[in-house]
């Protein structure tokens, strides 16, 4: 079963995160992701970045991943 922990590791493996939280029940997941890589990017581009890091897992294992994507400045402010 997909766990929040495995999703967190998957995201961290491809994206330098200042902070990350993932919660979920094995089907639906919620994540707060704080990364400097989001700076200057639109919301759509930020989510696409995370989807790209998760790759095929997004199609095969993860039914739903709700995300808040913030830069360190937005997170702190």
């Amino acid at each position, binding site marked *: 079963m997909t766990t929040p922990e495995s999703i967190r590791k998957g995201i961290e493996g491809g994206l330098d995160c200042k902070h990350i939280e993932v919660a979920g029940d094995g089907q639906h997941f919620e994540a707060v992701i704080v990364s400097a890589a989001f700076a200057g990017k639109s*919301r*759509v581009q930020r*989510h696409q970045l995370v*989807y790209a890091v998760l790759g095929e897992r997004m199609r095969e294992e993860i039914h*739903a991943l709700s*995300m*808040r994507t913030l830069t360190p400045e937005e997170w702190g402010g």
Partner: protein
Amino acid sequence: MSIQDVIQEQVSSHQVVLYMKGSPQMPQCGFSAMAIQVLQALGVSQPFTVDVLQNPEIRQGIKEFANWPTIPQLYIKGEFVGGSDIMREMYQSGELKKLLEGVQAG
């Protein structure tokens, strides 16, 4: 006509298009239900919707169209706006209301 052409045609010929699971009256997924509620709260009472559960080719094709792996997906004036998280954030911030100003539903 390829499925990508069909989608391009749909998003070009309607100002507001929501790809969703189920119908506005009977959404089949909580995220699609929320997307419809957001649009209705902003006065788009009858957006043009496409039920991807009724059309497997569009269900697959729409993920490639916007390089976006999840549904719902909202398009306004032919532009991809986002999925349910982004719709909720833009609703709360007032950005979605602004984007819908002057848009004729349907």
